[in-house]
Each structure stands twice: as structure tokens, then as C-alpha cells.
């Protein structure tokens, strides 16, 4: 679950319920920045992200009566934004099962892993401080099929647990775990040239 990072954005529900234009604008202005960033991370497209955030706010305005303040407003809006982004992906048929065979780990006929030796593993900081490498990492994440990428993002980056990701996507927890593990393995393969220090940016 995303943490309640900013309690200052936690507008008291009584005020929110008083469908007041000023409060609505305040809510939009206080939250639209991080909601756009979240939607763009999930959709990898600015235009789609803006549409999804608009949908999310409409859903939030409609659902305000049901928001009982049991979570922070931010946690509640976070989930609504994720749902809006997921429904965009569904509408674009980007959440169908997609093959990723060439990015899966390899084993020989004795069930032994095939893995070239790693004599060097690039330190985290040396990748993060290089803008070009960060761009390449982002492009590698984009290269994952959406059905895997989205599970990796929801669990490893947005902070939802396995059960919550299963509910958001309408799949089993087992399926979430399989997809997450494959996504991480595929990303490891895609990032190999960077992690081995063969690409220095």
C-alpha cells in the first residue's frame, strides 16, 4: 500500500463532501501533479496519462460520498488513478497475455542454469548518476510486454502487495507472482549490457 506521505493533502472528508467548487479545485491542484506522474509511469504516454487522470478525477468526484476517510485521500486517489490507467490499457487491449519466451532464463537438458560468468556487476550508484544510462533503463522497462511491466510496476515500484495487485488486475495471486518473477528476470536480461558495464553511456 502506498504510504500516507503527505498528511497535509488529507482534506477533511466533511469539507470534501460539501461539493464545493473551491474544495474541488483545491483537491485537483494538490494532487494532479503526482497523479499525472503515476499515470504516465503506468501508461508510458503523456496524452494517455492526461486522459486517465481526467477520468480518475471524475470517478473521484462521483465517489466522494463513499470516501469515508478510512485511508488518506492520497491513498484513495492513488488507487483510483491506477484503476483509470488499467482500464485504458484494457481498452487498448494491452493487457492480453503476451509471449516473452526469449527473455526467460535458460536451462540445459540437465536442468542446469545457463548463465555466463559475471566478473563485474555495475554498482547501483554508477548507473543512477548517469543520465544516459537512466534513459536506457527506462527504455528497457518500456520494452517489457505490458502485462508483465504493469505487475512489476504495481508491486516493485508503486508499493502494492501481491493480493492488492491481484485484485486490481482481476487475476490470481499465483499469476501475479509468476508474472512478477518473469518480469524481473526479463528486465535483468534486458539490462545485462548496462549491468556488465559494457554500455557506459
Amino acid at each position: 500500500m502506498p504510504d500516507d506521505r503527505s498528511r497535509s493533502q488529507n482534506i477533511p472528508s466533511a469539507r470534501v463532501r460539501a461539493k464545493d467548487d473551491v474544495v474541488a479545485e483545491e483537491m485537483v491542484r494538490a494532487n494532479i501533479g503526482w497523479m499525472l506522474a503515476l499515470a504516465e509511469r503506468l501508461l508510458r504516454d503523456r496524452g494517455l496519462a492526461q486522459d486517465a487522470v481526467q477520468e480518475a478525477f471524475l470517478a473521484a468526484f462521483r465517489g466522494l460520498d463513499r470516501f469515508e476517510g478510512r485511508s488518506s485521500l492520497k491513498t484513495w486517489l492513488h488507487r483510483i488513478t491506477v484503476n483509470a490507467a488499467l482500464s485504458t490499457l484494457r481498452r487498448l487491449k494491452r493487457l492480453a497475455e503476451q509471449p516473452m519466451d526469449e527473455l526467460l532464463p535458460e536451462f540445459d537438458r540437465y536442468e542446469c542454469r545457463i548463465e555466463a560468468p559475471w566478473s563485474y556487476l555495475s554498482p547501483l550508484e554508477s548507473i543512477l548518476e548517469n543520465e544516459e544510462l537512466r534513459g536506457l533503463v527506462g527504455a528497457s522497462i518500456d520494452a517489457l510486454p505490458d502485462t508483465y511491466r504493469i505487475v512489476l510496476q504495481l508491486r516493485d515500484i508503486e508499493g502494492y502487495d501481491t493480493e492488492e495487485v491481484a485484485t486490481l488486475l482481476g487475476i490470481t495471486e499465483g499469476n501475479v507472482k509468476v508474472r512478477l518473477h518473469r518480469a524481473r528476470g526479463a528486465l535483468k536480461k534486458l539490462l545485462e549490457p548496462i549491468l556488465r558495464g559494457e554500455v557506459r553511456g
Partner: protein
Amino acid sequence: MTDKQNTGMWRRFKGLMLKNMHRMLTCREFEEFVLDYLDGTLGQRQRSMFELHMRICRECRDYLAAYRRAMAVSQRVLSASDEPVPDDVPEDLIKAILESRKQ
């Protein structure tokens, strides 16, 4: 004997050993446990088998190290782009959202 034959024989030996010896995991079985190992949800017996395999198998040890580094890199790169500067928020989008609320 060439290096290649030597490697092939070693892999065959290793495969048979891991498959048949008590409390050993094959690399494929190791693969199935990676996620639960990192989540800390393996039972004690499974965890010790997992860790034993890592000590024996250079390939899986290397693989897991690179897998974890790839995870850390992608987490940090994606979460770094979290908060955009306020100028990034288009004013016309805010207007459109507030307009559509009234309809």
C-alpha cells in the same frame, strides 16, 4: 579432453547430483523459489535448501545477484521520476477537469 567437453561433463554431473541428492534443488527448482526467497516467505527448510544451492552453483549465484541489481536499478530509476515540477501541470487540463465535474 577439451574445455568444452569438460564443461559438458561437469554440467551433466552437476545436474544429476542436484537432481538426486537429498535436500538439493535443481537450478529449475531454485528458479521457482526466487520470488518467495526475496519476499522472505520460504519456510526454514526450503530457505536452507535454497541457500545451499546458491553456495554450490555459480550460475544461480551470479544470476540472483544480477536479478537483484536489475530490480534495484529499475525501482530507483522509476521512482526518481515521481514528483514533477508544478510547471509541468497543464492549466487547460485542470480547467477541463473542473468543467466536466459540473456537467
